[in-house]
């Protein structure tokens, strides 16, 4: 069954076409890795997909989109602002409810940063900030994940841990990444982007790292 289907996607920058025309069909359960050289159009594609699916997906953009002045808890909580009344949200800003705290705290524990619950986001390292954006995406509890280099600032074991978590928490995902080994390990389908076009689209079990390297 199809999770989403797009066709004729294009994007131009300064009058020059940087992406497409490109068509893509993603089935429910697909774990897609978008690979390709930087500048190939992966980020643009993720953005366009987010707009195409009507923002129903959990998005982890490359610049993370965190509110630096708020602590980690509130940044994660923002993933569920639509589920509560304005009063509930407003009160949470002043004094968070215990139930929400324990859920967010547990989620952060799985990402290895439970102790940072009340740290202002501005005071975190790059890898920690990345995990806060991931926690927010997971907390939103949508079926579809769109992520742009979500583990680029994480070290080896941590990157594996986070990728496994993302694989388990989202039914369907499209993740742009440059680490070929991670892509093969945690995704079921590899789409290679070259010069704004699909240059490769295969199930990952049929590929080895060297097949993908030709894109770079």
């Amino acid at each position, binding site marked *: 069954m199809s999770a989403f289907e797009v066709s004729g996607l294009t994007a131009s920058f300064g009058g020059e076409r940087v992406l497409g025309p490109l068509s893509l069909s993603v089935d429910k359960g697909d774990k897609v890795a978008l690979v390709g050289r930087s500048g190939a159009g992966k980020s643009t594609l993720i953005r366009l997909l987010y707009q195409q699916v*009507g*923002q*129903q997906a959990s*998005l982890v*953009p490359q*610049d*993370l*989109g*965190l*509110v*630096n*002045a*708020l602590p980690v808890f*509130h940044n994660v909580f*923002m*993933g*569920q*602002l*639509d*589920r*509560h*009344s*304005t009063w509930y*949200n*407003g009160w949470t*800003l002043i004094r968070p409810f215990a139930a929400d705290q324990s859920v967010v705290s547990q989620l952060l524990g799985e990402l290895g940063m439970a102790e940072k619950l009340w740290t202002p986001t501005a005071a975190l390292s790059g890898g920690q900030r990345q995990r806060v954006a991931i926690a*927010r995406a997971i907390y*939103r509890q*949508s079926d579809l994940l769109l992520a742009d280099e979500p583990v680029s600032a994480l070290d080896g074991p941590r990157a594996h841990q986070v990728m496994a978590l993302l694989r388990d928490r989202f039914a369907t995902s499209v993740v742009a990444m440059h680490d070929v080994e991670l892509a093969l390990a945690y995704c079921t389908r590899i789409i290679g982007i070259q010069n704004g076009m699909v240059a490769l689209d295969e199930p990952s079990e049929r590929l080895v790292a060297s097949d993908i390297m030709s894109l770079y």
Partner: protein
Amino acid sequence: MFSYPTVRTSLIFVAIALVSLLFSDIAITSSNPWQDLGNFFLGVVTPNFFSSEGLMTALLRTVAFAFVGVAVGSASGFLLALVYRFLPVRIFCNFIRAIHELFWALIFLQFFGFHPLTGVLAIAIPYAGIFAKVYSEILDEADPEPRNLLPPGTGVISAFLFARIPDCWHQIRTYTAYRLECGLRSSAILGFVGLPTLGFYLEASFSQGLYSDAGAMLILFYVLIATIPIWVRPKLLPIYVLSAPFFLGEGLPIVWGNVARFFTQDIVPAPLRNGEGLAGLGPWLNDLMVNAALPGIWNTVILTQIALVATGILALLAFPLVSNHFGGPIRRTFGHVFLVIARSTPEYVLAYILLQLWGPSMLPAVVALALHNGGIIGHLIGRQTNSIRLRPDAPKGFNRYTWELTPRVYRSFLAFLFYRWEIIMRETAILGILGIYTLGFYVDSAIQNIHFDRALVLILITALLNIGIDTLGRYIRRKLALQTMPTC
């Protein structure tokens, strides 16, 4: 050097000021100006804090009016900022902030009388216009990405509270605190039209020649401003704001009949009120333009242009006083004290004092405007030079000033100066109340002769002139690609 647009613009403004000087009335008319000035300084160094309990009351009222006025202005300004993108709101805000606090006070005095509401609204209304503009600029600069990432269906208010306010909160707080300092100055000068704040006390002391009392008031005022970081704390702020309304004093009760009469009779142009119909409006307006508005505009513009250039010269001379690139710590400390005094004293107070000492002419106004505004710009530019790193073998002394530093800060100097152009004009107009023939003089005379219809037209003209200068200043800043943060 003449090929630089900034240099050419500066020279054009200097030339305009020199031509204006030919038409201006610059003189010292009092018989013993230096002796008076000496007596005054003697008063400042021998302050008398205990002459009457009036001083402490005036200080308390000044703080109370500032807090209530700025709080009301900031709350209304914030609401206006949310709809600032609509053109009618922008025009409305531009208009209310183009009218000086003292003009607002003069208007409200006519129908609310000496009720505390007069002072509160006189501060709150123009401040609301300024807050609306600056808050909306701050809110526009918030990072849009967190908003884009919110789940669809998030309420507008929730989105605003989480994704916009926290990002701007620090800037909003800094700017509001800064405005509170401006509010204290505004509140102090409201005393000059009769409200129970420091200006009233100063005028009373001066008229009796009690220079030591006036000196004590000035010193207390500087201490009040300089210690703001100590006594204005986020935790104490709610206490101040909630208790301030109780310290405004009783004033006199509002006579509602006056309010009704003001709007239905007083401000209706005389020919219409007397049943002459529209035909009488032409000669009435003609008389108003020829005998009040045009001379007022002419003198206001002349004085503004002279004061603008004087401000610039003073700022350029003053910034080395606080720059780390010159002098030792002792000289810099004196420089700081001088600039703090210059910029903390409202133009109006400076002009009032100098006018008492030197007699009526444009000179006290020019010196007052240059000292206050030059003090502010000099301080800002001087601070900016502290972040400049010079090469180790850079020239010293005068060559360092002319070759290394001035060229580097000249653009931001001009940006601040053109930003303050409109502020200088607003102040120039208001100084007319002290007896210099700018627009404020004609407004004040119209009010004294109970011609409120004429006064209101003149205030409208003043507002339009300010908006015009503001637009021109903005155009020049854009043309020269100068950027600046708001100062008051």
